[in-house]
């Protein structure tokens, strides 16, 4: 179990370093969503299921939606969809 925790923590640190370094903002947001999900798993391992549910819904759900909406307004999603 402890090795799983090590693995997840290393993944977290890698995500945290990568997320702000990604060249495309879309990728940065998606890496951040992965970061949140892994945090939720870690909390599940640490016997805090309430936090795991909340973090999964907040970090991977609402935060990502808000980031994506901002990116949409700021035209950083152009080219990801065919416009008529």
């Amino acid at each position, binding site marked *: 179990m402890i090795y799983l925790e090590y693995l997840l923590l290393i993944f977290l640190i890698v995500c945290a370093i990568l997320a702000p370094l990604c060249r495309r903002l879309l990728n940065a947001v998606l890496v951040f969503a992965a970061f949140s999900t892994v945090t939720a798993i870690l909390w599940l391992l640490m016997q805090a299921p*309430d936090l795991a549910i909340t973090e999964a819904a907040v970090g991977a759900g609402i935060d990502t939606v*808000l980031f994506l*909406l901002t990116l949409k307004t700021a035209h950083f999603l152009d080219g990801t969809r065919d416009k008529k």
Partner: protein
Amino acid sequence: MSAKELWTRFAAWVNGEAAPAARFEKEYQPKHSPLFRRKPREVSTGQPKTYEVWFYRVSAVLASVALIGILLATVTRLPLHGTPGTPDQNEVAERYVEQGLEETGAVNLVSGMILDYRAFDTFGESCVLFLTAMSVFVLLWNDKHSLPPKLEAERKEDDIILAEEEMHLLRHAAHFLTPFILLFGIYVVVNGHLSPGGGFSGGIIIGSGLIFYATACGQKTVSRFFDRKAFYILNFICLAIYAGAKSYSFFLGANHMENPIPKGIPGAILSGGLILPLNICVGLVVACTMYAFYALFNKGDF
């Protein structure tokens, strides 16, 4: 500078006509001030100088590295992770665990703790959400300044695409899935005192369900049953019930009176005293707020 010149300057300064510092001039051109004779400095036009930028960067990195170093040193002195007998295993945690069920009626001790033992914090937290929703209203609610014509055109185009494009699959999926998402959210809210979850997580799930539906079928469809007025009224009712119920209980507690609210049979849905209604209130506030965020970020109105 001769004595006479100094005197003229001083006289002018007393008269308020020519001030000693150049800041009284119409355009800001800091010359050498008479107090400390220095060379004229370049006016900052906004572009910081390279060495300033580098100084800032290097000092920020150094500060952070020093912070990490100090904190890592601190971590080695902290109680060991996962071992019993740490300082936080004291009488507070003991009472929360051992008498939590009896005193609050909640099987989920975390719910019991945040909605009964430390309910004031949670009240503040709902107020944070409410306040943020209102701040986002101030920022993004459409008015003639915040909605440039280009953006308005784009948003209209989005509506047209949404109306014309044949998104049968997405729409069918939304019609099919949204009730289940909402149902799951309601389950999490209502069972907040029995199982993991509670008002916040359940409210966010309900909000996500609404957002999903709005993304697939357009915000207009949602605004048929949930518009701005409904948002205001629902938010007001929930927060008012929360404030009323909790302040009643705070008042009784502070004045050393008995709590008349029945706790119910532990483990049943209708148990836990005020926890269930409070969870429902919090859940509704959170769901409303989350949908309001979406609507304001997306269209600036709903």
